[in-house]
């Protein structure tokens, strides 16, 4: 059975450059590669081998159709028996070379069915051997005394420094925010006083209902000025991005 496995591996190594996938190219150069599942005037969906992604057509530059590595993987996987560990190993390596991690993991799991202690397949699934037993990467970090901060594993000493830096940064930001609010309150108070004075003066001259600014004070976020496309000023005097006010 050795010869067929080697032959399979050879074919797999030769094949990648011949393959093309369905590709959805976004304006700006990013792209999705896989198997297109549906397309309408507004949306295109593409199976990337680890799920299906929906992309608004408004963001699509062009769509190129072809035979995808995902198709190729599935074709070759169907040709392998459950016991062909070397065939699955070769297929997993090929999937990795194509950036198909989910398929590489699937192939590694097939290898482990036959060879439960296979280092390459264990590694492909993220296992590391420590103190004579297989464990996940995270378990190994914990066992070695690392801690996770903000998604990163690091030593406890490093974590303390990172957290101290973050706390110091937060303190600076809080102080700045308090100072800004105090300044804004002061400006608002001055504006209110000015407005009150102005209204009192105008009340003696014209009908008040025709001149009141509809966006002034108390409505929604209390826009006190005409909002720009970039930012608006809240009733607390703070300036925030407009997408925070009107989230899409």
């Amino acid at each position, binding site marked *: 059975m050795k010869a067929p496995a080697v032959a399979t591996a050879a074919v797999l190594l030769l094949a990648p450059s011949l393959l093309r996938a369905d590709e959805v190219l976004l*304006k700006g150069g990013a792209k999705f590669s896989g198997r297109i599942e549906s397309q309408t005037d507004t949306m295109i969906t593409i199976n990337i081998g680890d799920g299906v992604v929906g992309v608004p057509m408004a963001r699509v530059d062009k769509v190129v159709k072809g035979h995808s590595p995902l198709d190729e993987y599935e074709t070759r996987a169907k040709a392998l028996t459950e016991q062909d560990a070397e065939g699955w190993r070769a297929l997993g390596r090929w999937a990795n070379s194509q950036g198909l*991690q989910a398929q590489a993991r699937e192939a590694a799991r097939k290898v482990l069915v036959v060879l439960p202690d296979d280092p390459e397949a264990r590694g492909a*699934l993220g296992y590391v051997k420590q103190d004579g037993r297989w464990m996940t*990467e995270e378990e190994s970090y914990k066992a070695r005394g690392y801690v996770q901060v903000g998604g990163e594993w*690091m030593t406890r000493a490093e974590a303390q420094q990172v957290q101290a*830096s973050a706390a110091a940064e937060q303190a600076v930001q809080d102080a700045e925010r308090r100072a800004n609010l105090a300044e804004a309150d002061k400006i608002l108070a001055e504006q209110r006083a000015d407005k009150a004075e102005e209204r009192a003066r105008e009340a003696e001259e014209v009908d008040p209902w025709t001149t009141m600014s509809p966006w002034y004070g108390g409505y929604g976020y209390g826009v006190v000025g005409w909002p720009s496309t970039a930012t608006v000023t809240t009733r607390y005097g703070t300036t925030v991005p407009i997408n925070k006010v009107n989230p899409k």
Partner: protein
Amino acid sequence: MKRFASVLLVRSYAAAVLALALGPALADPALAANAPATGAPKTAAVPAAAAPSTALTVEQIVEKHMAARGGLKKIRAIQTLRETGRMTEGPDKQALVTRELKRPAQSRFEITLQGVTGVFVSDGTKGWKLNPFDGDFEPKPLPEEAVREAAEQADIEGPLVDWKAKGHSIALAGRESINGRDAYKIQVTLKSGGTRTEYIDAKTFLRVRVDSTRTVKGHPVQVTATFGDYKKSAGVAFPRQVEISASGRPQKMRVVVDKIEVNPPLAADRFAMVDLSKP
């Protein structure tokens, strides 16, 4: 609709790679601060007695370094560069990466994982990204910090080439053993004020390691990049293997460069912010 599972993984990858992408001469460690990495390789000071009797000046070391890379004439002839390879963090995380550089300061980096390709671009003064891993389907400006670092690192040939003309200063800071090999330690102060330590192999005169300090989330992090497997393309030596680590972190990020193209045609619009108003 099923959310693709690899996205979360790639978000951290992309940040790391972005940093990697925007530096010169592949994997500039000063930009790899976000890289998941591990502790620095073992180093040891070389005893004075072990040093050769004929001491070299820092200028002579840089001169020999340039010769080892292929010579200034060939290095200066590089106008554009495309590197294609694989980036891994552990045996189960691998992405396909491509980096394009163009003088004077343009860079474009693409990372592909599980059929999804993200793009990060800088012209040295501003930058943008189109990163589906963050759920983005339209370009967004790069954070100020990334642009600033990109500008600092937008030197296709590295800071030691024409260092004086570029306004940098250099000083020999002794010698160290890097992974068992004797290396000159050169302290580089960039014109921008940034500093880094370059280690030049005392025998081959190729760069074997760079140390730098980067600010990550407000915290200074020591980042180390080691270089190996040098091969020449167009007469210039390029490292084909790069390993990046950060102090106190167990992870290591490795890049294997499979292909280097010197002076490929790279149109200017590959580095220009895409105009979404155009149909």
